[in-house]
C-alpha cells in the first residue's frame, strides 16, 4: 500500500498558530518575537479592530521587508490613540502629517529613499476609511496614477469613529451614525452605490489590490507578503470592526468581521493589474440577519418596529456580491486548510 502524508492538522490554518504545522506555515502573529509594531498601552477602545488590523498588517510587512519599513499615517483613530504626546506606541519608523495627505507624504518618502539610494527600505501608507475614500482620495488616486512604490493600507471601520461616528463614503446602507440617524422612512445611511474603493483602485490598473478582514489572519498576512513582492502602487483594504461605532460587543470584533465575510457583504479577494485573481470562498454561508442583529447601528431594523424590507435589500447586496465574485463553491469544501494560505 502506498502511503501519503497526513494532511489534516486539527485547526489547520484557521487558528493563529498550530503546533502540528511547520514554523513556516504558522502566522507572523504566532511568533513570540513578532515586531509588535503597535505596542501595548495604546488608547484604543476595548476590542478595537483597527489596532488589531494595524498590528497584523505591519508585523507582516516588517517580516516581509526584514524590518526595513517606514509607515506614514493619516489622521484618524489609529494616529490619535497611538501617539498622544509625548508617548508613542509605534515600534517602527512612523510619520504623521495631515488627514488627507498620507498618500502624498508616502510618495515623498519613497522619492527621498530613492534619492538616497536606499532601495531596501519600503514604504507603507495607512489611513482609516475617511482618510482613504473621502478626504485622502485625491492624493491616493494620484499615487496610484503615478505608480509610486507605496503599499497603501485602508483600515475600514465604515465611518469617522475618532470624531464621534459620523458617516463616511464607506458607511454601508441603513447603518445608523451620528449624521445618518435612524429616523424617517429610510432610516440610517442611504442605499446608494457606495464608494467601493477596492474596485476604484483596480480601475487604476495598479499591480495589486486585495481585501481582507481581521477574522482571517493567514489570508491577511499572505496578502501583505504578496503586496511586498511588487514595486509600485498597491492597495490593501482591511475590514476592521469598531465596537464603539458599530455597537457590537468588544469581544465580538472578530466574530463580526467573520460574519461580514461569511454573509457575502464584504467580499474577500485579490486582484492583479485590474483583474480579480482569487477569492476567499464562503465557508459557512450565513444570512445577513446574523451579522446585522449583533450591531446596534442596525438595531432599528429589528424588533417590534423592525424593517424586514431593508434587511431583505441588504441580503440582496450580499447575494449580488456572492454572484459577482463567485464566493460560494459549487463543490463542497474539501479539507485542505494548509493550501488556503498558499
Amino acid at each position: 500500500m502506498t502511503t501519503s502524508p497526513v494532511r489534516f492538522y486539527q485547526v489547520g490554518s484557521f487558528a493563529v498558530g498550530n503546533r502540528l504545522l511547520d514554523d513556516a506555515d504558522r502566522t507572523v502573529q504566532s511568533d513570540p518575537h513578532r515586531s509588535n509594531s503597535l505596542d501595548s498601552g495604546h488608547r484604543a477602545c476595548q476590542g478595537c479592530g483597527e489596532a488589531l488590523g494595524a498590528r497584523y498588517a505591519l508585523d507582516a510587512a516588517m517580516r516581509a521587508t526584514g524590518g526595513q519599513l517606514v509607515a506614514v499615517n493619516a489622521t484618524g483613530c489609529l494616529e490619535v490613540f497611538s501617539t498622544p504626546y509625548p508617548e508613542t506606541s509605534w515600534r517602527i519608523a512612523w510619520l504623521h502629517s495631515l488627514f488627507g495627505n498620507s498618500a502624498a507624504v508616502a510618495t515623498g518618502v519613497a522619492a527621498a529613499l530613492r534619492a538616497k539610494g536606499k532601495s531596501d527600505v519600503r514604504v507603507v501608507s495607512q489611513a482609516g476609511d475617511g482618510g482613504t475614500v473621502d478626504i485622502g482620495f485625491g492624493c491616493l488616486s494620484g499615487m496610484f496614477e503615478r505608480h509610486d512604490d507605496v503599499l497603501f493600507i485602508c483600515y475600514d471601520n465604515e465611518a469617522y469613529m475618532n470624531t464621534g461616528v459620523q458617516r463616511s463614503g464607506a458607511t454601508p446602507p441603513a447603518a445608523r451614525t451620528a449624521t445618518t440617524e435612524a429616523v424617517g422612512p429610510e432610516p440610517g445611511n442611504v442605499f446608494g452605490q457606495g464608494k467601493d474603493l477596492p474596485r476604484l483602485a483596480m480601475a487604476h490598473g495598479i499591480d495589486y489590490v486585495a481585501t481582507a478582514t481581521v477574522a482571517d489572519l493567514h489570508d491577511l498576512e499572505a496578502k501583505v507578503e504578496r503586496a511586498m513582492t511588487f514595486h509600485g502602487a498597491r492597495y490593501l483594504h482591511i475590514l476592521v470592526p469598531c465596537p464603539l461605532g458599530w455597537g457590537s460587543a468588544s469581544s465580538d470584533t472578530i466574530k463580526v468581521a467573520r460574519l461580514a465575510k461569511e454573509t457575502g457583504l464584504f467580499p474577500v479577494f485579490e486582484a492583479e493589474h485590474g483583474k480579480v485573481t482569487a477569492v476567499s470562498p464562503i465557508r459557512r454561508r450565513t444570512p445577513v440577519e446574523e451579522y446585522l442583529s449583533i450591531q446596534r447601528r442596525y438595531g432599528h431594523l429589528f424588533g417590534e418596529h423592525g424593517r424586514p424590507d431593508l434587511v431583505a435589500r441588504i441580503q440582496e447586496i450580499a447575494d449580488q456580491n456572492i454572484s459577482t465574485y463567485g464566493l460560494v463553491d459549487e463543490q463542497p469544501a474539501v479539507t485542505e486548510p494548509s493550501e488556503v494560505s498558499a
Partner: protein
Amino acid sequence: MNKPPFAITLEVGSSRANHTGSWRVERAVYVDRMPPCNDGCPAGENIQQWLYRAEPGDYEPAWRQIVEDNPFPAVMGRICYHPCETACNRAQLDEAVGINSIERFLGDLAIEHGWSLPPAGAPSGKRILVVGGGPSGLSAAYHLRRLGHGVLLVDSAPQLGGMMRYGIPAYRLPRASLDAEIDRIVALGVEIELDHTVTDIEHERTEGGFDAVFLAVGAQLARRVGIPAGDSSRILDAFSLLHRVAEDDPPLLGRRVAIYGGGDTALDAARTARRLGATDAVIVYRRNRERMPAQGDELNEAIEEGITMRWLSTVNRFEGDQLILEKMRLNDEGFPEPTGELEELDADSLVLALGQETDLSLLEGEPDITISDGVVEVSPAMMAGENGVFAGGDAVPSQRTATVAIGHGKRAARGIDAYLTGGTLTDPPRHELATFDLLNTWYYSEADRTHRPELERARRQSTFDEVVGGLTEENALFEARRCMSCGNCFECDNCFGVCPDNAVIKLGVGQRYEIDLDFCKGCGMCVKECPCGAIEMVPEQI
C-alpha cells in the same frame, strides 16, 4: 542626552508607560475544563490528554498516558462500548471522534513494539489477596503493584481474563491481544494461582496473612427462568455456551438456534451460534429494538451476519423441536404485556441469555458486609466492610461492563492503599464540564470520521476471525487530530494573536500563556476566539 528639537519639551516615551489594565472590569483567566470524553469514561482515562499526545505522532507517550489509568488499551479498543464517543462534542459538529479505534491502534502498537508497563513501586511490605482474574481483578492487581503492594491473584478458571476470555467471543476480542495485555500485568510481579476457587474468604485471608482483600468474582451464574419443555428439548445458557467455545469444546446446537434475551450476551451467543454452523439464529426478545439494552454497533453487525430478530416475544414453552412464543405489546409506560397470541418457531435448541448473577457464598460469615439485590454494597472507596474487604466489577452495583470493572479495579487499588496507609481516598475537585456551547468550532477544520474496516460477511458467518479491523497509522493520526481538545488549551496561539493590546504572553511550548494584567483591557476577545473554551472572564474585585 540630546537637547530636544525646537518647540519640543519632552523626550519621546513608550506608551507602555500607560497601563491600560486600569480600564478593566473583567479579566481573562485560563481554565481547564472537563472534556466530556474524560467525564464519560468509566475507567477514568484522560482521553483528551492521550489524544493530544498522539496528535503529533508521539504514540508511546500517548499509550503511556492511557496505561496510567487502564492497562488494557488493545482490549478496550475492541470491546469497550465507548461512552466517551457518545459524550464527544464533535458529534454535534459532524461525527464523534473515533476514540475507541485510536485506543486500539495505540494498544496494538504497544504489543507490536513490546512496550512495557510502568514498573512496580518500591515494596510496601503489604500483601493483598485479589479474588478473580477478570478485568476488575487484573486492573486492581496492576495498580496495587504500581503502588508497591504484593498481590496474590486467584481465579477458579484455568486461565486469567474472566469474562474477557470466557464471555466475549474471539471474533470480537482475539485471544492474542488479551494474552499480551494480561502477561504485561503479570510481569509486574503478580503472584498467580489458577484453578483455585475461594470458598471462605476469611479463612484464606488469615491463612495467607493478607492485609486486605479485593473481591472481583464477577457474575458467573446464569439467570434461569422456568420454561416448560419436553425431555428432548435442548436448553442451555449463553454463558456456558460462550465459556465452552472459549475452551474449544463447543456444545452441539443444531441448525436452528433460538436465543432468548436482548443484551450484548444474547448477540454474542447468536453470532457464536452462526459461526458454529447454525443456519438460523433467531433472537427472541420481549421488548423492541429501541428498548434493547445491547449496544447499537453490535446489533447492526449481528443483523449483517444474518441474525434475525423476533421483537416483542417471550418463550411460552418448548415442545420437541418447536418453540411456542407469546406475542407482547408495550403498555403506556413502555413495559411489555402479554397479548395471549401464540406463534411457533422451529428450533433445535434454545439459548438463555437472561443475565448473570454473582456467587457470593464465599462471603458467608463475613461481618459488616451488606448484600442487596445479589450484589455487595461498597463505599466510594470500594470498601465492602470495615475490615479491609473491598469489592468491584460485576459483584457490586454497576453497569456490568469490562470498562466499569477496570475503573473499579483502579479505584479499589487506591482505596486499599489509603486504607493501608491510614488515610482516606479523596477525589480531586472536578472541573466544570466543557460543553459544546463553550467552544468556537469555526477554527476546527472540516473532517469526517474515519471508520474501521470490517471483515467480509461470508467469513464472519463461518469463522471466529476478528470482525472489526484496526486503523492504519495514517487514519489513526487523522482521527486523533479530529479531537477538539474541549476545555483544555492546545496552544493554538489564538489568544496570543487576537489580543489588540498585546496583553497575552506566550510562555513557550508546553507552558501555555499568561495574561499581562498591566495592559489587558478586558475586551474578552481571547475568550470568544478560544476554540476549545479554555479561558473565561471573571469580574474584577473593585
